[in-house]
């Protein structure tokens, strides 16, 4: 079982951040369907292995995070056909689905979180996790952006603080909390998408700059968290 797990992990790393599927596409423009099939198979396998686990391998989460972020970056710089191809590939991999065993799990009620009065406070690990889940998956900053089309400065600031604080607790960990990993793995991409709505009305609007900038900052800090 351990041997199988290591083999799957190696393959996921190879196809996402190594010389496999993604590197072939992004650097050599080779869209190798067999490689993508192989990655998809490995993702399905690791999902089975992760079933019921509260903590998961940090290096895999980090590799998936880099893969999602970079593949969309590459996609944005390509023509429409390649853009669509990359979007189809990343969508087909169903990376979000990897983190939840049963759909009911995602329907669990969310805890609230009250932003502290100051950002210069010491967060416990649990407080970091609560803050991350609230501002990405609950009623916090992401919801304000998606449904109310508002940039919640305080919410984003405290979320960045929580991610930075969490780094202290996770720096030597091989395994990390699965729900927080799930909340963060695609977050910069989804935040960047929110900017697109404002861009249509006015590409130079304050909101476009704010959402693009926070998406970048989140990407930088989340990357450090998974390194």
């Amino acid at each position, binding site marked *: 079982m351990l041997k199988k797990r290591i083999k799957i992990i190696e393959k996921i790393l190879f196809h996402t951040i190594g010389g496999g599927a993604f590197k072939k596409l992004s650097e050599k423009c080779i869209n190798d369907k067999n490689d993508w099939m192989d990655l998809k198979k490995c993702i399905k396998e690791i999902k089975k292995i992760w079933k019921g686990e509260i903590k998961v391998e940090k290096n895999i989460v980090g590799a998936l995070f880099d893969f999602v972020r970079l593949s969309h970056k590459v996609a944005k710089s390509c023509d429409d056909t390649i853009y669509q191809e990359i979007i189809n590939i990343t969508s087909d991999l169903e990376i*979000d689905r990897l983190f939840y065993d049963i*759909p009911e799990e*995602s*329907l669990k009620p969310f805890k609230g979180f009250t932003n502290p009065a100051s950002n210069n406070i010491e967060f416990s690990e649990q407080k970091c996790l609560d803050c991350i889940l609230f501002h990405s998956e609950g009623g916090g900053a992401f919801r304000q952006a998606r449904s109310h089309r508002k940039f919640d400065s305080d919410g984003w600031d405290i979320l960045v603080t929580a991610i930075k604080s969490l780094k202290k607790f996770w720096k030597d960990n091989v395994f990390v909390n699965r729900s927080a990993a799930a909340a963060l793995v695609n977050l910069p991409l989804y935040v960047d*998408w929110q900017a697109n709505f404002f861009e*249509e009305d006015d590409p130079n609007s304050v909101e476009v700059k704010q959402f693009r900038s926070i998406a970048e900052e989140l990407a930088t800090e989340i990357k450090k968290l998974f390194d």
Partner: protein
Amino acid sequence: MKARSPNSKNVKPQQHILGERETPYISTTKDYEIASPVYNRNRTPIVKIDLKKVTTEVIDFTNKDVIKFYLDNPKAIYNVLKDAEVLIKEKIVPEAIIKIIWPGT
């Protein structure tokens, strides 16, 4: 009314919910408050839709079984539940639009 990219294939409802722009879906809600300018900064008219007259696929996320089938990301689930969201694929035919409410009226 047409979706932004009616012919986009392989774009899943979850991607639309999370903010992907070029999708074949139109977001609507069953909750008037959600559509109202008080809730949303968008000051465009609100249209009342008769779902029975919609000729394309309707994905009603006020039904939990529908959520379970289409969504797995809590960011998406939380928002569709709070917004009583209903997606309509490709277009809303004029016959399905039964009332137009202008802001401030």
